[in-house]
Structures are given as C-alpha cells and as structure tokens.
C-alpha cells in the first residue's frame, strides 16, 4: 500500500533552516529519504547543491551522519563506507546512502557509479536530478533536457538527456526506481522498499529547481507534478528486472486520459523561452515514444 503524505513519520532529520534556495526541491526529497531510513544511515555527498544544503562548518542542517566527498567519488566513497562498516563489524547499524546531482551522477560520477553497480555494492544511490549543474550556476549536464537554456547552452540544449535509470538497469542491479521530489510519499515508499533490499539500489529523483529552471519558488511541487502529468518524468520501479509503473504514472497510464502537452509544461519555465514550435514538437515526440515504451513494459512486467 502506498503511504499517504499525512502518514509520513513526524520525526525530522532535515533541520529547520538550511542554505538551499527558496523552493529548492532537494530539501523536500531529502526529508522523505531520511524519514524512510528513520535516520539510521550515513550519507555521502559530493560537491553539489546538496553540500550547500548540508551547511558550513561547524553548523550542519541535517541530523544524520554525512561524509562530504569529491565530485566524482560518491559511489566509490559509498563503497568505502560499506567496506569500512563491514570490516569494523558495524554493517547492520545503518544504511549507506549516496546522494548526488545529475552532473555528479551521469557525467563526472558515472564511472565510479558503474563500477560500484557492477560490483553490486550494498548501498542506496539517489540521484537528485535538477537537470543541470545548478550549484555552479546552471551549466548543461548529460541530463539537461533538450531545449533548456543553460549558461553553457545559451540558445537551448540540442540533445535529449541520457536515460540514467536505464543505464543503471543495464547493470543488472536488484532495484532501480524513478521518482519525483514533488511526490514525497512516493520517494518515501521507494527508499523504504530499497532499504530492505541488498545490493546496489538506484533511485532517480526528479527535483525541480526554481532558480535554474526559472519559475516562481512557490510552484516547485506543482511543476514537479506537471512533469509527471506530461510523461516527461515517469514514476516507476524495476525490482529484479520486473518493471512496474507506480503512483501517479500508473494511474495516468490506466486512466487512458491524454497526458498534459509538453508545450504546457515548457510554457511554465523561463529556461525553455525561445524554443521553436518544431523543437517543442520534437520533445513531445520523444516523450510520446518513451511513454509508449513505459506503458508496454508495465503491461509485460519486464
């Protein structure tokens, strides 16, 4: 049974007051993640927006153990935490959770992550995908969507993003999930499920970014939900190779109702300003093809 947002545990591990931007989606997701693990965890975090959220010495905004790490090293550091805890006879004391952004995951961190996945290291890896290098001021990453203006794609990115969850799926790891910070209960349920699985568990969390995407900070959750309604972000999980749409995406597929047009979603954000109709149509086609694939996989259960 899916957990309702009103049923999330009260205890907070993300303390009130942190250095993230107004409306940042990371904090919403991190609250759900830490609640799902009851705080019995150690995080490792590379250089990223999450580092900023975590606070500056000697003040921390999160009451779980947190090991800062160099940009490419998140998954290797998580492997080291796992090995270290095991070697010290402490493996059962806490879940090791790696959490990096889209650049830290799909670009500079992908080699170490691939190695850790191939070894099926025993940790949860969460990629919070805010779709560009936001901490350094919105440069394009391998997960920036086509059409998005960044400070390294001034006229809009030409290429579609990598499909990071599928890359991870190809490693044959026991659990892959796609979620969104706009659905904290979905994040909670997926991390909760991942907690009780051994091996490398990969969770991809779409994370709206008001400053990088250029929208009003009050709209973070609304936009995150809209991305799901449009099929740009699809909520699903792959457990031991079995694919299943989850939550709102599953309901959307079953309803047979039309998805929100990509153009409507693009309209809401300054980063897409200036996209031509053809470019929007190309993204719509890309989304439609992917959606059809997800629905087919859901029907097949594979």
């Amino acid at each position, binding site marked *: 049974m899916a957990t309702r947002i009103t049923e999330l545990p009260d205890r907070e591990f993300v303390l009130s007051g942190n250095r993230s931007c107004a409306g940042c989606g990371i904090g919403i997701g991190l609250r759900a993640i830490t609640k799902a693990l009851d*705080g019995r965890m150690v995080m490792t975090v590379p250089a990223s927006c999450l*580092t900023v959220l975590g606070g500056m*010495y000697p003040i921390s905004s999160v009451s779980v*153990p947190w*090991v800062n790490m160099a940009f*490419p090293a998140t998954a290797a550091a998580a492997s080291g935490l796992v090995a270290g805890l095991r070697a*010290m006879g402490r493996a059962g004391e806490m879940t090791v959770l790696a959490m990096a952004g889209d650049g830290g995951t799909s670009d500079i961190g992908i080699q170490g992550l691939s190695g850790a996945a191939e070894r099926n290291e025993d940790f949860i890896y969460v990629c919070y995908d805010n779709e560009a290098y936001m901490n350094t001021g919105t440069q394009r990453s391998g997960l920036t969507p086509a059409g998005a203006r960044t400070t390294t794609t001034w006229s809009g990115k030409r290429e579609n993003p990598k499909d990071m969850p599928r890359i991870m799926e190809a490693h044959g790891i026991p659990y892959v999930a796609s979620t969104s910070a706009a659905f904290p209960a979905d994040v909670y349920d997926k991390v909760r499920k991942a907690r009780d699985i051994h091996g490398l568990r990969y969770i991809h969390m779409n994370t709206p970014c008001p400053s990088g995407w250029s929208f009003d900070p009050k709209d973070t959750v609304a936009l995150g939900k809209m991305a799901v309604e449009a099929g740009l972000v699809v909520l699903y999980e792959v457990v031991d190779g079995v694919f299943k749409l989850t939550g709102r995406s599953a309901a959307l597929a079953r309803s047979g109702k039309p998805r929100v047009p990509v153009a409507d979603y693009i309209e809401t954000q300054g980063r897409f300003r200036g996209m031509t109709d053809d470019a929007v149509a190309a993204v719509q086609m890309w989304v439609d093809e992917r959606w059809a694939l997800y629905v087919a996989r859901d029907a097949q259960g594979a």
Partner: protein
Amino acid sequence: MADQQMTVMTGNEAAATAAKLARVQVIAAYPITPQTSVVETLAAWVESGELPAEFVTVESEHSALSVCIAASTVGARVFTATSANGLAYMNEQVWWAAGARLPIVMGLANRAMAAPWNVLNDQQDSMSVRDAGWVQLYCRDNQEILDTFLQAFRIAERINVPVMVCYDGFLLSHTVMPVSVPDAAMADAFLPPRPAPLTVVDPDDPRNIGAVTLADPRADAEGTSCHGYMEIRALHHQALLSALDVIPQVDEEFAAVFGRAWGGLTWEYLLDDADVVLVAAGSLGTQLTVAAEALRAEGMKAGVLGIRSYRPFPVEALRAKLVGRKGALVFDKALSYGYEGPICSDLRAAMCGVNDAPLVFGAVCGLGGRDVSPEQLADAARRAVADVHAGASERPTDWINLHLEG
C-alpha cells in the same frame, strides 16, 4: 631471531606482506605496472582467507583512494598502492586524504610519468605530490620496504596524516632480495590495532564530516568559535612537522622489537670524515654507497647521506649532517621542469644562510628507467669536484648518461 623468517621476495611482495602483517581491514586498489603484483598478492590472500579483509576491486585509482578515504573515516585500517599515472589520476583524492587527516598508508612503486609512455623507474610521480600533505618515506631495499610499511601505519595513526611509502619500480618492486619476515605475533607487538578514529560515523551522534569551511573561524550553534580553513591547514602542517620527531621515535620502537633500525629521517654511509657528500632518496642511495667506496679508493673523502623522509623535509637533521662538509651533490630521479631536481632545491634552501654550509650541486639521472651505474655516479662526483677546483660556485644541473647528440 626465531620469530623472524629469512626468505627471498620482491619489493612488491614485501609491501603486500607488510599489509598483511599490519592486519589491514580494507584494501582498494587498481592495477598499474609496476605496482600490480601487490594487488594480485593481496587479492589472493583475501580470497583464500589468509587475510581477513575487505578487498574492493575498484574501476580506477580515483575510486581506490576514495574507497580508502571513506573506509578510513569509519575507522578501518586501510591500504592501497599505485604508480605514476595511477597516482596522477587519484591526485584530487591524494589531497583529500591528507586534508581529511586520515591515517591511510599507500605504497608507491615509483615510475616515470607519461607522455611518452614509460613504465620504468624514476621518482617524478611521488615528487609531483610532495606538497599534498602526506608523509613521504623512501626505501632503499626490500627489507626496508617491509619494515617501513609497518612503521608507516604507526606513524600515520599517531599523527593522523597519511603516509606514502615510496620504493623504486622494478629496481625494488620486481627484484628479489633476502627479507626477514616477522611472524604475526611479533608484528602485533609492534603495531596494535588502529586507535579510535577522530571521525565519528554514528546515527546517534551525527556529524557532518568535511563540510564547507570558510576562511575565517566561525561560531558553532553554542557560540563556540571553531577553526577556519587556514587554522585547519596550519594544524595539518604542524602534524606533518611533528613527524620529524615521530618518524625517528617509531624507528626506535621498531628496533626494540625487531632488532633493526633504518635511521629515522636520514641514513648515512662513510659519512664521518666525508668532505664530499652524495645525497639521494631510495635505491639510488644504495648505488651511491658503491660509488663512494670507489671514490674513497682513489683518495676522495666521499660519503653518502640518504633521505628517508622527504616530507616532512628533515632540515635540522640534514644541516647537522652537512655543516662543515665541502660539498654535497644531490642526485634526483625527478625534475621540476624549468628549474632543477626537487631534492636539490630543497637541500639548497635548507643550507641557505647557514654558517659553514657545503656547496650544493644537483644532478639528474635515471629518468624513465635510464640505467645508472655506480661508476657514472662516481664520475658525476669527480666532475663536481673538478668544477669546484676550477672555481665554480654554482652550475647547471648535471644530466648523467644523457646522449642528446644521438
């Protein structure tokens, strides 16, 4: 001694044996020539159960040191080894390990840096990270490799600074020599388990480790002022300087258990009455002892001063050994391109303004595995002395056995 077994092994086997005797708990390493057999040997021991440790078969050197950093943060005794480009690839984490004050021990089978590709020995790799805040110890033979690794854990864990044990690729890593191997009880008597780490990883006592730290001191939630970045760096520097005391202490403690000592910061040969002192780090020092004997035979009062600890640089010890000598000739197997050999620069700086300091000349040799014979080393000393007699007080770096003419 009954509890030490004389055997014949390569430098890499000596390194792996030391890691086993040190009861390392986590190993992460990636293969690179000439370090590879360290990794192979340890992997075999972990697989067979002979060494109860976690062996993480990472996909790169960057990840090797990252695994070590995280495992050491949790409190495990960790080990890795690499060479040349592998060290360069993990460079970011070399700095991280030191800045995080983790007692990691890394073996470095010294190898030339590419390009062009060259897998043979020089010391350019370790010299390129001399400023990263690690202790760097150089070994002259395989017994010293085994012994220095055991000492390295004790040094690292006493001052919370990582230690790089450097030994010449192929010349030592792949050359078999007699090595006295202590039994486990003897090694345990010298090297107790790692003390509790400075870092706390505990959900009931959550800490944010390695967080962004500002330039200036900053108050914590209770209002207590905590160090800024510069204070943290100053403390790191002080810890490294404290190794100038700790390294000789540990060498003495080692001698008390094993009956062998390695000189602490430096070692010497025929130095007592020497006028001309030949200086080097690593196995080149052993070759210099042969050169010094040849020079003595022809009447030159030559001696050898070997550098065991390059970082921290043993300024006082070197001054004490060199003041009053006529000249010192430093042989570097590395170069600061556009200047001179790194040990030469450091020694010159250490002697600058010191009364009765010797003249210090530099020579570069053995780059990319270029063979260097004791006779060539002796020749270099003869040239230096001749230059001084001809009135030279300084001169360009002498490149030994160089054939630019083709």
